[in-house]
């Protein structure tokens, strides 16, 4: 079986800075992967390459074996890649329900859309917020709204960029449960700093450092890895 | 010369269409003693305010003068002045307003040919008499409209041979790129060639052009004996400035069909920059006749000795023709003994003739233009020094294409082709 997502030798340069450096990455169908690494390690840039927001300088991206390198964002999204970006990326002027409606409506009948909107809100647990304008919600709630938006499109692969940021402890725990629940049907890649949170959800972890993959292993193994500790503590590493 | 017939048919079709709107016919306020209303549409603000303000003021002066002499038909006149803000859309709206709401007996106004062509068809439709008092390119043929300013056959015809005799036969024309400039420069070419000269080039400039650097170099490369300027408006004054700054004033002289007509040009630029520009108009403040001196004294007494600081001179071809247009209309009303539009038109067509500040002014019944004296002047230290005068010049250009006696229903602006 073909992997769900594969990158070969992916490179993204800005001027003289190399943000993503020759990354070979493989994700199987139904997998849940965590991506960790210090600030500036290239995780968000990697996501932007995957979703067509940046056109990679070199290398290839394959989704279910089909090359998607350099496609428009909306084409990639239509193939079944959804993303929750680092800064909540929602329609602030619309209500929660309308936000999710926009996502659910693509390619579906009005009746199906209505059902999916209800489901997505229930799944994330924000049904009580349905009529509120998103712009006036708290940061953590907006994160959940964005998650519901992504879910409503029913993508095969979901990318989550720091989903737990700005959440209370309870919200974080609920989020972990939601992610595990999502993973029953869909594959995920989650970027997160909070190692507690990573432990809650992940089996396999990929560590980014200076744009390249430093380590890729089981969560426990990664936590024990000396190089990873050095990176997080800011020590110099011989890469 | 050819005539654009198709356009004429269209225009009459359009005006015929509006006859359905007979409800729009103004009902004259005939109550005895009520004021007679006179409409004045001039640009008192915006880009053309320097020309429009004096016209409106002098129109007001003419109204006051008539009132001082007892008014018309035993009634007082009242001026409904509207500021068209140098905006064509407002011309259309305000023409409607004065004609249909205020129901004025006559409208004086319009400065550019563009504005005239907006309000002229409209006023004809509303059966409101119209006086256009600006020097222009000639060719308006409309029984509802009287044009009291000068046209090229009256002025350019005199100007061209004079300056060619003085300076030489090679002419370089620079003209404003619209109706007036296009047609007037064609007349310039015609008269230059008739006098055995040659127009080296005719360059057109939209009214907002201020950059004349390349043009000045092109003129130098062409080496003409004189430059004929048909430039219009404040932006185009940049030409005279840049010309003087390049030291060209002593090299190649300039004649103009427009410079100083609105009165402000010689003020806006310095005496050195304007020195020696020769022009030809129907009125100069320096005309040395008792009538003009008396007129100037009256205006001075009424509107002040000098224009308020920062405003141009009051008395120019444009404003004095406006005064004369008002007086001609008043004479027509007196003669007709009524305000009825057709009766007034017929009275005016009887060839009314008045002695005016600019000399004798006679309405030409065939074209609704005027036969008037024209003058040729040299600009010396901001004063127009009159070089020559030509008595009783007929509007020969319009006469060649327009005969309202034969075709009273004509409604056309002929583009006189040369």
């Amino acid at each position, binding site marked *: 079986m073909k992997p769900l997502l594969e990158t070969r030798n992916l490179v993204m340069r800005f001027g003289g800075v190399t943000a993503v450096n020759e990354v070979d990455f493989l994700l199987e169908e139904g997998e849940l992967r965590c991506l960790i690494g210090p600030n500036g390690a290239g995780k968000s840039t990697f996501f932007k390459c995957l*979703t067509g927001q940046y056109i990679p300088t070199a290398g290839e991206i394959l989704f279910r074996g089909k090359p998607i390198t350099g496609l*428009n*964002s*909306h084409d990639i*999204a*239509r193939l079944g890649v*959804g*993303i929750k970006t680092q800064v909540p*990326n929602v*329609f602030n002027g*619309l209500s929660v329900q*309308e936000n999710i409606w*926009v*996502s659910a*409506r*693509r390619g579906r009948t009005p009746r199906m859309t209505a059902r999916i909107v209800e489901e997505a809100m229930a799944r994330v647990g924000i049904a009580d917020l349905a009529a509120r304008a998103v712009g006036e919600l708290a940061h953590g709630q907006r994160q959940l709204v964005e998650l519901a*938006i992504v879910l409503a*499109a029913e993508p095969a692969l979901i990318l989550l960029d720091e989903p737990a940021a700005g959440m209370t402890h309870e919200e974080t725990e609920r989020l972990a449960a939601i992610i595990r629940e999502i993973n029953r049907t869909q594959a995920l890649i989650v970027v997160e700093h909070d190692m507690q949170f990573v432990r809650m959800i992940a089996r396999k972890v990929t560590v980014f450092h200076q744009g390249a993959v430093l380590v890729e292993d089981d969560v426990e193994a990664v936590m024990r890895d000396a190089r990873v500790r050095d990176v997080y503590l800011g020590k110099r590493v011989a890469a | 010369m050819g005539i654009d017939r*198709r*356009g004429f048919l*269209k*225009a009459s*079709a*359009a005006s015929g*269409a*509006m006859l*359905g*709107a007979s*409800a729009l016919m103004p009902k004259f306020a005939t109550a005895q003693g009520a004021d007679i209303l006179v409409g004045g549409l001039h640009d*008192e*603000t915006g880009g053309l305010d320097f020309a429009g303000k004096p016209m409106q003021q002098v129109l007001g002066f003419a109204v006051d003068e008539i009132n001082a002499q007892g008014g018309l038909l035993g009634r007082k006149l009242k001026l*409904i002045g*509207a500021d068209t*803000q140098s*905006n*064509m*859309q407002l011309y*259309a*709206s*305000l023409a*409607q*307003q004065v004609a*249909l*709401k205020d129901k004025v007996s006559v409208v004086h106004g319009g400065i*550019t040919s*563009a504005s005239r*062509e*907006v309000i002229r*068809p*409209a006023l004809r439709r509303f059966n409101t008499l119209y006086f256009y008092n600006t020097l222009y390119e000639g060719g308006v043929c409309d029984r509802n409209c009287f044009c009291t300013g000068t046209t090229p056959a009256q002025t350019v015809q005199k100007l061209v041979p004079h300056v060619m005799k003085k300076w030489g036969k090679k002419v370089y024309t620079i003209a404003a*790129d*619209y*109706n007036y*400039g*296009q047609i007037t420069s064609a007349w310039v070419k015609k008269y230059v060639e008739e006098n055995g000269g040659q127009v080296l080039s005719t360059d*057109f400039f*939209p*009214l907002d052009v201020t950059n004349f650097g390349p043009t000045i170099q092109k003129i130098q490369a062409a080496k003409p004996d004189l430059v004929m300027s048909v430039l219009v408006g404040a932006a185009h004054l940049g030409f005279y400035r840049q010309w003087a700054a390049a030291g060209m004033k002593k090299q190649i002289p300039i004649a103009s069909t427009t410079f100083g007509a609105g009165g402000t040009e010689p003020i806006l630029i310095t005496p050195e920059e304007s020195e020696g520009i020769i022009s030809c108009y129907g009125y100069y403040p320096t005309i040395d006749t008792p009538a003009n001196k008396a007129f100037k004294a009256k205006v001075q007494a009424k509107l002040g000795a000098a224009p308020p600081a920062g405003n141009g001179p009051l008395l120019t071809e444009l404003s004095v023709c406006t005064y004369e247009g008002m007086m001609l209309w008043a004479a027509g009303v007196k003669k007709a003994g009524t305000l009825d539009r057709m009766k007034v038109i017929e009275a005016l067509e009887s060839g009314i003739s008045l002695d005016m500040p600019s000399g004798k002014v006679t309405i030409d019944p065939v074209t609704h233009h005027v036969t008037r004296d024209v003058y040729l002047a040299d600009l010396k230290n901001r004063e127009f020094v009159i070089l020559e005068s030509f008595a009783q010049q007929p509007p020969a250009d319009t006469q060649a294409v327009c005969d309202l006696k034969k075709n009273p229903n004509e409604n056309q602006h002929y*583009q006189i*082709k040369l």
Partner: protein
Amino acid sequence: MVPRFLLGTLATTAAGIAITILIPMVADAFEVMQYTLYVVLGIYTLSLAYIWGLGGILCFGQGAFFGLGGYTFAIAAINMNETTVPFLMAIFIAATVAAALGYFMFYGRLSDVYLGVVTLVFTLIIWKLINSTAGPEYMIGTARLGGFNGIPSVPPLNVPGDPSRMFDPVEVFYIAAFFLIATYLLLKFIQATRFGRLSVAVKENEVRASLLGYDVRMIKLLVFTIGGAIAGLGGALYAAYQSFIDPNAFSLEMSAKVLIWVMAGGVGTFVGPLLACFGLQALSIWISTVPWANSLLVLGGILCFVVLLLPKGLLPGLADLSTWLMARARRRTPPEVILPAPEGKRA
């Protein structure tokens, strides 16, 4: 939400129809003609209120499509001696040009103020070019372009199929009012459709919309084209009503004026910009006949105050005011007035 939305639209439409019927009954013929101009400019206003308010496209050159509509109508009507086909052509040409320009911009990923400037430059190019067509050599069929002077003697609207029967001014008023109300209803309808709601989403957040699989460029292009078609409709009525069209339609002023109406009326609404358009237009006519006032001084002063006192625009501003007054009446305590911070950061 839906019933209220529908209620507002129906109420506005009813009011519009009532006013349309009422005006010729109470007003002079002259006033009817003046109101026709307001109505025509109202259609033009709606075109920008739509693409900006619902599509988030800031167009500094909406005059281009208005002018193209007017010129197309004028040239075609003079050539055909009939006005129905020219009327449709005007809408079509304006929409086509808007689509071409929109393709150029949206597929080139221009946005924001850069897009605004491109639209402005586009209309200025047409303005410059059309201004330099005064010479007799610039003819399209039997119509002379006329440069700065524009095209005079544009035929008035005739009954479709019968070129000899022309509408009288009151009928023209009805026609213009019909198109204004129809445009309003059309836009309200679009707003309620899936496409309309998506375009609002795109306005709110382009990146999010494209990450959900929507082709943002396509949606914006459609919105822009519809806006162009409506502006073209306004332009055609404008040329027919005034029986002339001149290059001023392409001028900076014409494009800026409509921006100001929309902004003063409130971006995101339709009725607000319409009221602002009518109000400011009436004001500018009224001020022209006041002998003691300098029109520019007064108009400028009023605009400045409007911005400072009603920062969100007329309609939303009045809504705020009424909420505030009601709250005041209820509570009888000084409410918290939210003023814009005296200093802020760059947008």
